[in-house]
């Protein structure tokens, strides 16, 4: 009898940790909905989704890097560089290129920054933390330098549609988020590259011994992460109709937080895109819900910290 109990317990705790994050999200929603019915209104739900879209897109790239066992601290700064460069190309007063070109240039800048990160990590053999911290500083400086510290504003309406437009009553950034989630999940789950990303993070030496080009796999993840960061910079600029060189400071931490709450292991080799999306939703829902309840933003930060703590503790337990 006792044996059966034990077995049941072990099964339960395992399942809990696997689906724990979904339960947590549900409970959170029920709690907020119970305390204020506004929370569940369609308008508010769309609002939450739009609010999280930036962080969630960053978290997609971040997760890919973390699965390989790395980290990317430069996303916030890369975002700013891409934002100011793209914005300066399409100011409404004197647009220099078509919208699509401005977007592509921005994304290309992200790719180049990611490429440098990747080169530092693979060829340079530097720890990802250091390499991307270097990029974080340099890219921020470059953004300031490019605009001489001033924001770039007044953009073409084609461009701002990306951030503040609606399709069928739903904000464009939500569609973009959905697209990025699908692409990222596809890469990780359906392609060889995705499998290699997990293999490299799980055991780099074994991956190399299995004929995997470890350097190339890592490069791909940093480039992808940089491109997504740049993309977020562009949509954000479009939404604000302005690009500031100081935009995105501290965003890397929110992206890491979403990834970790979603169960991604900082040691690499483990992580699920859908869970990370839920992780970003949890962060967004908490601040939205607490806003509705008129809780001060100082308290919100404390709550966010505690949530991350609990998420990681659950993850540790599950690993055992």
């Amino acid at each position, binding site marked *: 009898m006792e*044996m*059966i109990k*034990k*077995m049941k317990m*072990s099964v339960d705790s395992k399942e809990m940790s696997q689906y724990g994050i979904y339960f947590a999200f549900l409970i959170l929603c029920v709690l907020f909905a119970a305390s204020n019915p506004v929370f569940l209104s369609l308008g508010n739900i769309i609002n939450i989704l739009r609010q999280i879209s930036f962080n969630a897109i960053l978290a997609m790239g971040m997760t890919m890097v973390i699965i390989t066992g790395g980290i990317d601290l430069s996303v916030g700064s890369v975002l700013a560089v891409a934002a100011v460069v793209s914005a300066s190309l399409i100011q409404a007063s004197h647009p220099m290129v078509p919208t699509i070109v401005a977007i592509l240039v921005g994304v290309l800048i992200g790719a180049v920054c990611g490429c440098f990160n990747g080169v530092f990590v693979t060829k340079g053999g530097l720890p990802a933390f250091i390499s991307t911290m270097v990029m974080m500083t340099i890219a921020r400086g470059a953004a300031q330098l490019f605009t001489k510290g001033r924001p770039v504003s007044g953009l073409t309406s084609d461009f701002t549609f990306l951030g503040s437009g609606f399709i069928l009553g739903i904000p464009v950034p939500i569609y973009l988020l959905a697209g990025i989630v699908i692409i990222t999940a596809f890469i990780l789950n*359906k*392609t*060889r590259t995705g*499998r290699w990303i*997990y*293999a490299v*993070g*799980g*055991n780099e*030496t*074994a*991956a*190399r*011994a*299995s*004929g*995997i*080009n470890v350097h190339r796999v890592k490069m791909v993840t940093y480039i992808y992460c940089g491109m997504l960061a740049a993309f977020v910079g562009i949509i954000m600029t479009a939404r604000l109709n302005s690009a500031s060189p100081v935009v995105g400071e501290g965003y890397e931490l929110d992206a890491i937080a979403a990834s970790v709450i979603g169960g991604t*292991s900082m040691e690499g*080799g*483990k992580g699920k895109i859908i869970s990370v999306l839920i992780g970003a939703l949890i962060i967004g829902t908490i601040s939205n819900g607490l806003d509705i309840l008129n809780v001060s933003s100082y308290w919100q930060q404390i709550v966010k910290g505690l949530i991350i703590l609990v998420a990681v503790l659950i993850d540790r337990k599950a690993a055992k």
Partner: protein
Amino acid sequence: MSYLQIKNVGKSFFGVEALKDISFNIELGEIHVVIGENGAGKSTLMKIIAGLYHQDKGEIILKGEQVQINSPIDAIGKGIAMIHQELMPVPYLTVAENVFLGREPKTKLGLVDRKQMFADTKKLLDEMKIPIQPEAEMRTLSVAQIQLVEIAKAVSYNSELLIMDEPTSAISDREVDNLCDLVFRLKAQNKAIVFISHKLDEIFRVADRITVLRDGEYIGTKNKEELTRDGLIQMMIGRELKDVYEKRDCKPGKVIFEVENLCKAGKFDNISFNVREGEVLGIAGLMGAGRTEVCEAIFGLNPADSGTIKIDGKKVSIRSTKDAIEHKIALVPEDRKELGLNLKDSTGFNISLSVLKNFVERGMIRKDKENKAVDEAIETFNVKVQNRKTPVVSLSGGNQQKVVIAKWMLSNPNILILDEPTRGIDIGAKTEIYKLINQFAKEGKAVIMVSSELPEVIGMSDRVMVLSEGMKTGMLSGDEINQMEIMKCATIQRESF
């Protein structure tokens, strides 16, 4: 009265009985070997005695008193110390700091008394005749030396019982001699030693008494004199062992793989050899002879500085593992946890990793095809696993090794390199792996097998290349393949050349 009595001890994990009703005694001044196939319960039992696990049933009686051992610290307090199979040194600390980790002697000011610590360590190592400097950093030592330090550390707790879990699994024959000497000295000091090992030769060398476990059950305890080799094997596997090494009738065909003047600075010099179709080429040598390095060079993992590799008479360039795989070479590595497997993932993930190419259609992995191939491999290679989703880390050593072999067999190699293919796995799994190797050779493919176990090299190989200090010191075939000849070549030193 016995020093330690194990009485009706039982232990279950999640409803699976790992130990059933185990009873035997351990005496002071004896070397007590505990043997059994993987999964027999040796480690579980030892971890109970060392305080890492608690028994569900039964009791442990130490010097006549029933005791409850709650933690490793508790065990050390009671004079019981365990030297684990996986050594856990702190690499950037010195030998002395490792020995006194967590109980550093202090000066009056409460700071670490380094002088005292180094002096005490030196005394300890001298007493045990271990030639290692207390000031050396741990990371500069070899595996065998680290092990000696760990033993010294265990002795320094004034332990009466030392449990050594497979202490010889990663060290060379010469180092085993050193270890045995030390064990004999400890025995002379009236300590009780429990020695876990898979290797029959050394068991018969060190043991006073031998206890056999099988599938969590106690099979028996015998004095060494009462046992023969075959008798012991029979106790372990519960059946008669006819022929571990089944001989193939070897009719090697043409040369399919050739290596000429392969060199790598500081690792090996001028290595040339060839392998023919249907042939098993053994590579023997002591630890550090360069065997693994040669294999890794051929496989492109750590490419050689110079020399040529030819396949079917054509010169090929192998600069990465990818090149090697394209040329149909596969390497089953020595260290399966480090090089062979991704322990964070499932059995299926590991098996299909190097052959994903075969399942890709329009850029996408076809899961159905992959699963089919993986399931077939699990079946063919007799991997005992619930299903392909089972985490590979939960498998026994033998089954993990079969996963690595299955992984590489799926790549359909023509040249299979196996580096210590049966290290740390039980006789049942060994036999299966030998069968697989023979089957592979029978298909007219080439096998290169590195092994530290001489009976294995002798039993399996058609020819044996012997390395010593990075040089090829012998190529033996036919009747020359015997223990004497191999050891003669393996101990040739550079000066005498």
